[in-house]
């Protein structure tokens, strides 16, 4: 078993692969680039997290104690931009880089130099964005949604914001193209579309979503740029424009973006739950169709983010109904995951724990999403902490927990070593307890009438804000366990075999741990594919 791979590894050493800093700057290897993406995402997770700590610190009690309201608004704006574009999206791309070639039986991504380029855009994009904190007028403070006319009041950081968004968009589009080309062209013979692992499927659909909507965002911010500097009036009523048109364009990007952030999570959870239930995924094909229908529906629900702008009745009814419809395929997915565990043989290693937390807490976020779809009730929820609670439930214990589940699931494969399971279990429990202390009370705050994006609040909101802040500090501190566990694993983990988890199936587990430099130098044989897909 180890023979051909040892040969492959030896062969790889004869390659003229760069060493030292050149290994990273000139990187064309999917694993190196994947690692850089993940390290970048983790760094941004901590920077964006630090901003969240500033927010929770100021909101710990009523009155302004620490920051100016303008800086507070910068914190909420930058926290969102950094977490969405800097942590979650690059995190998924990192996992795609590592896993897709291994899962489809390919040696590498299809377009390695493009891969290098799409990663290296990101540090520049975020240096530009974060350095806007230090220019006159401060960092962007008009919200990550960049609604005009407010965003046009941004100071010197305005063009920096626009160009940073352009760069992030370019990076995402290039990364997405690479994923599509890899999946469409590099699959080993025998891996038909409906034999692909769900992580590959969800990423394929995510990549199409990215290619479809990132240019829309680029167009929207470019129109802002010309409104600001070149006298156009796309979004100014005085010149015949319409500020609400920006919201329509933005959310036409923004809603598919929501699924860009969550679909890869669906894929990962669909890999982990079968592994630790020791049972094949229930309803594989319906899972694929459910993801595809969610992706389609995501294009026709955008205006549910803006029910209060004063749309015609017919439009509100349409967007309410289309939004409610999304609950159907999403429900199918949750039921399928539950059915996968039903009559399984469950064990609770860290990846499974995080996947289970995802299952419960993402569903809670789904419920509040259903509530938000009801237009008359949404009039009361819109722009309150109820919305903040909703999207943090789907993004933190949703997307982020699934990403951590993925890291804990595949880390032994990447490093060839097992991490400290006990410590990772601690990481799970601390994260799960604190994330609920942090976000659950925000449902109450929103329903009781606390608007979002405010640095100070009426005194009756004090108690739950304190609880929420305590949860926030606890959650933030617990996250330091993640890099510690990963570094400790790389340095001194105990070696693992090819199949790090007893119930794991899929081509990646047929490769040695760590996998060779060029993952599959020869396509896996039918027998290997059949064993990998031993469902």
């Amino acid at each position, binding site marked *: 078993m180890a023979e051909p791979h040892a040969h492959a590894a030896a062969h790889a050493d004869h390659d003229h692969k760069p060493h030292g800093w050149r290994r990273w700057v000139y990187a064309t290897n999917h694993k190196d680039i994947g690692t850089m993406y993940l390290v970048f995402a983790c760094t941004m997770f901590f920077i964006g997290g630090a901003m969240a700590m500033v927010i929770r610190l100021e909101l710990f009690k*009523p*009155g*302004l*104690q620490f920051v100016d*309201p303008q800086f507070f*608004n910068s914190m909420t704006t930058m926290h969102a931009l950094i977490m969405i574009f800097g942590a979650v999206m690059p995190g998924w791309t990192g996992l795609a880089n590592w896993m897709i070639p291994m899962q489809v039986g390919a040696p590498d991504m299809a377009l390695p130099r493009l891969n290098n380029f799409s990663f290296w855009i990101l540090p520049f994009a975020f240096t530009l964005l974060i350095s806007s904190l230090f220019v*006159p*007028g*401060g960092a962007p403070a008009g919200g990550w949604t960049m*609604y005009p*006319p*407010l965003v046009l*009041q*941004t100071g010197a950081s305005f063009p920096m914001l626009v160009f940073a968004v352009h760069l992030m968009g370019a990076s995402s589009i290039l990364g997405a193209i690479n994923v599509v080309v890899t999946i469409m062209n590099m699959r080993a013979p025998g891996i038909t579309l409906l034999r692909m692992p769900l992580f590959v499927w969800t990423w394929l659909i995510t990549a199409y979503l990215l290619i479809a909507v990132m240019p829309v965002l680029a167009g929207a911010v470019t129109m802002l740029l010309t409104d600001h500097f070149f006298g156009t009036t796309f979004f100014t009523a005085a010149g015949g424009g*319409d*500020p609400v048109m920006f919201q329509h364009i933005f959310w036409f990007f923004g809603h598919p973006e929501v699924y860009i952030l969550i679909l890869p999570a669906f894929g990962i959870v669909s890999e982990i739950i079968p592994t630790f*239930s020791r049972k094949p*995924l*229930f309803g*594989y*094909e319906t899972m694929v169709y459910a993801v595809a229908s969610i992706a389609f529906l995501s294009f026709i629900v955008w205006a549910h983010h803006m029910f*209060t702008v004063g749309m015609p*009745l017919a439009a*509100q009814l349409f967007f*309410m*109904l289309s939004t409610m*419809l999304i609950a*159907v395929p999403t429900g*199918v997915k949750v*039921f399928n995951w539950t*059915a996968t*565990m*039903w*009559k*399984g*043989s*469950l*064990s609770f290693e860290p990846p499974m724990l995080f996947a*289970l937390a995802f299952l*419960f807490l993402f*569903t809670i976020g789904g*419920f509040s999403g*259903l509530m938000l779809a*009801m237009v*008359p009730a949404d*009039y*009361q929820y*819109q*722009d309150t902490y109820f919305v903040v609670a909703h999207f943090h439930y789907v993004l933190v214990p949703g997307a982020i927990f699934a990403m951590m589940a993925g890291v804990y699931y595949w880390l032994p494969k990447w490093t060839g070593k097992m991490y400290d399971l006990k410590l990772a279990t601690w990481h799970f429990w601390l994260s799960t307890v604190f994330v609920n202390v942090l976000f659950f009370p925000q449902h109450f705050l929103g*329903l*009781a*009438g606390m608007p979002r*994006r*405010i640095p*100070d*609040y*009426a*005194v*009756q909101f004090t*108690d739950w804000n304190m609880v929420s802040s305590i949860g926030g500090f606890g959650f933030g501190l617990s996250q330091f366990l993640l890099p510690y566990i990963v570094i400790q694993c790389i340095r001194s983990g105990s070696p693992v075999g090819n199949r790090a988890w007893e119930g794991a199936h899929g081509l990646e587990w047929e490769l040695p741990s760590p996998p060779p430099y060029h993952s599959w130098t020869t396509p896996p044989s039918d027998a290997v594919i059949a064993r990998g897909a031993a469902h």
Partner: protein
Amino acid sequence: MTIRKTLARLVLTAAAGALALPAVAEESGWAQLNMPKGVTDISRKIYALHMEIFWVCVAIGVVVFGAMIWSMVVYRKSKGAIADTTMVHNTQVEIVWTIVPVIILIAMAVPAARTLIELEDTTRTGLNIKVTGFQWGWEYEYLDEGVSYFSHLDRASDAARELGSGIDPTTVPHYLLNVDHPLVVPNGVKVRLLITGADVIHSWWVKDLGVKKDAIPGFVNEAWFKVDDDFTGMLRGNCAELCGRDHGFMPIVVDVRSRADFDAWLKSTAAGQKEAAAPAAPPPATAPSSPPATASAAVAASG
């Protein structure tokens, strides 16, 4: 009464306490857990809709989470559970759990649509008030009576909210939810609001009225409310759309009066404003302070 019945009643009372709340409660406690019922027919319909969908979610949650927890408890490897690897799909079950949610959703969509249609009906109104959001306050204009004035955060809150003011917010009455000149409206009358923005987008929100509508520069949005005949008192709300530095400091207060009190107030205010008409009609008392000059305002002015 059996113990079980007593327990059931206790649980029900607690649930009712948590969920069925006094109309305009602002104090902390149970009122801080749920949406208020409000003081209009529409706000109560919204509340009912909110509770309906909430209980539907709870019911689905009990079933789904129940199945998940059952699996986690019963099908444990450590308890010797052996996986049934033949269970890969079941067309009948899958059809059922696709159709059932569709039926639930339709059942929820019908009352929601009905309320929405009622909510959008701005005809046959008795009083028209133009509401203009600006950075950072509100202007109210009684269109048929020629009365208009500005409404800002009250002085006490404004002093206490400064960074490091040293004033304990709990000592300020209605901290951040009080204004110098509230919007005065009569009860029992269908009031139509014509909402717009002067500079950036704001959103006029009073939860007890069940009204939230964006104030968009260059466009006029409509909303309406009709306060119960027997209600008088103050209702408090906020700007709900991020509008710059002092977004958190432009509350809304609605002073609901009886028809007769309102008419008297309107008459005297109209007379007062006419008297002072020569120097461009200021509100009954002058606004406490113009919005502080800020980095963003300065940039807006210069650029």
